[in-house]
């Protein structure tokens, strides 16, 4: 379970790639080339930490919209992401039907999710139930924002998992806001992990800006789940560095100082300097990674820009499973 040096570097690379892709989305939005972006900036560390703790490709994930870095770790490509930003043909999550960042990646066992928050939590419980029925050596990871844990849906999902001791990990990405609403208006506890005690399962809070710590707790929870010892709620604490989405103006509800302060502690910067200090990365290697990321992002934008839109006829199907086209 100990991470190798290579893995630790790989994790930084995934964070970096997701970040550069995400930043480009904001640029494309400012350029008027895309209509909407919802960002994971500031949340990459926790997502990458969690992803690496899974048996990727075998374990299942029911993600939420900020999980670009998580999806990248699962093999979602930059090209696929930019196709989704532009609603172009071949976009794998939905064929252009869903808004960007509404993930689905069948080949990686990443389940399609919708916009209504918290619905994915019950799906995770159900998938875990099926795994248990079929005696599979798998776990499900489901992610959610801290605000969305206010939904009864989340409570019911966690309760099911606790009653049936299901192999699920409920990862709460607590970025301190639900659009404009701060945590203290959502809950009267200090961490959404505290909610676990009320449902009879373990709850842990972890620094979500440290991918290696998140890796550790998620890996432990996964091991526990695999050995039949049931679910865990993990809250990873972090900060939403960007506005809620490209439609939001966060200056109306939080100070620039507050945002600046968190930018200073940006996980990308922190992890990079740690790896440099530990001698795992040289400045040249860092530059190399940046160049590689830039290249991949450029390529993705170029690819997606040239890709065609869906044919109008594609809107008509598949309403029912019988109409699914396999091409």
């Amino acid at each position: 379970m100990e991470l190798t040096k290579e893995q630790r570097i790989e994790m930084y690379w995934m964070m970096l790639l997701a970040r550069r892709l995400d930043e480009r989305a904001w640029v494309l939005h400012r350029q008027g080339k895309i209509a909407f972006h919802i960002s994971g900036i500031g949340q990459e560390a926790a997502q990458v930490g969690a992803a690496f703790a899974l048996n990727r490709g075998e374990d299942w994930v029911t993600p939420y919209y900020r999980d670009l870095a998580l999806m990248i770790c699962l093999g979602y490509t930059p090209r696929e992401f930019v196709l989704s930003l532009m609603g172009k043909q071949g976009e794998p999550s939905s064929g252009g039907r869903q808004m960007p960042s509404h993930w689905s990646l069948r080949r990686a066992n990443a389940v399609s999710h919708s916009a209504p928050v918290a619905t994915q939590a019950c799906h995770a419980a159900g998938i875990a139930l099926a795994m248990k029925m079929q005696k599979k050596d798998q776990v499900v990871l489901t992610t959610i924002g801290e605000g969305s844990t206010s939904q009864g849906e989340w409570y019911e999902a966690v309760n099911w998992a606790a009653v049936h001791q299901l192999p699920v990990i409920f990862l709460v990405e607590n970025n301190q806001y639900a659009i404009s609403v701060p945590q203290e208006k959502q809950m009267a506890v200090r961490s959404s992990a505290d909610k676990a005690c009320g449902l009879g399962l373990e709850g842990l809070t972890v620094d979500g800006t440290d991918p290696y710590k998140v890796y550790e707790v998620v890996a432990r929870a996964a091991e526990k789940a695999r050995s039949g010892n049931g679910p865990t709620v993990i809250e990873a604490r972090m900060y939403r560095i960007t506005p809620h989405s490209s439609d939001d103006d966060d200056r109306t509800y939080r100070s620039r100082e507050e945002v600046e302060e968190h930018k200073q502690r940006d996980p990308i910067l922190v992890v990079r300097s740690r790896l440099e200090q530990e001698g795992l990365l040289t400045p040249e290697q860092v530059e190399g990674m940046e160049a590689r990321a830039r290249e991949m992002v450029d390529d993705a934008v170029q690819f997606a820009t040239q890709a065609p839109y869906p044919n109008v006829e594609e809107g008509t199907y598949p309403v029912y499973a019988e109409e699914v086209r396999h091409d």
Partner: protein
Amino acid sequence: MTEMTLIEAIRQAMDEEMARDPNVFIVGEDVGIRGGVFRATVGLFDKYGADRVIDSPLAELSIVGVGIGAALYGMKPICEIQFSDFIYPAYNQIISEAAKMCYRSNGEWTVPMVIRAPYGGGIGGGLYHSQSPEAMFAQVPGLKVVIPSNPYDAKGLLKSAVRDPNPVIFFEPKKGYRLIKGEVPEGEFTVPIGPARISRAGTDVSVFAYGMMHYYALQAAEKVAAEGISVEVVDLRTLYPVDRETILASVQRTGKALIVHEANLTGGYGAEVAATIAEGAFTDLDAPVRRLCGPDVPGVPFSHPLQDWFMPNPEKISSAIRELARY
């Protein structure tokens, strides 16, 4: 051939499908050791065990949400909602998730599941044990909505529903559970989801109904036959997608249409049937389309005289047929 009740046919369908396919399982409130409050699942817990006949927590949202998760994994859940009146907590999971999963993921994910729920009034159940909410579902692309009116169809349609790769809402006329009996052949058969059925041929008036009201419609047709009115009765059976062809063909034959359901008139399923006829059989109609439905009050009252006032019955249907025949 054996004569059996509606609920026996339903139980037999589940039993056979569970025996046939190890992925089929039942989940709901009191479905296990109790065998369901209407006894639909009696014996299945003993036969298939607690893993495949699951007494859920008392929470419809997660009965359906967990069912969806299991279906995504490849299982075939049969979710029982104890009364259709209690399906609303699960509405979000049904409408936002089950119905839209296939389309939104461009067919990457499908939700093969059945949601069974007893519906309908006339059983002294008051506002909250008598509801007919079919029109809230029979307008949602991605769902199929089925209501059987007799044991043969109940068994055949439920078996089709279990094998269907889509979410099927299966409403069962609870007043008919033990009242409606009929011949059911031994051995394997299914009834396809989709086509309505002409259950009585006639030339003067078409009556469109389903579930308990179809049972009453046949009685009414019999009664007015003695008076020389020839009624064609159409059992709609699959409410969604709508079998417009059978509906229109019948009106072409008779020129007159009466639609009967227990649900409130306004915005009820009969509106779509009437609209279908108004659009597609304009030149065939010899009289205005007529709807005989529950009155527009919030529910079936408990007190007997009020319940009788609310419910359509063979007498009320006969009168409506007579009026229409006279037009």
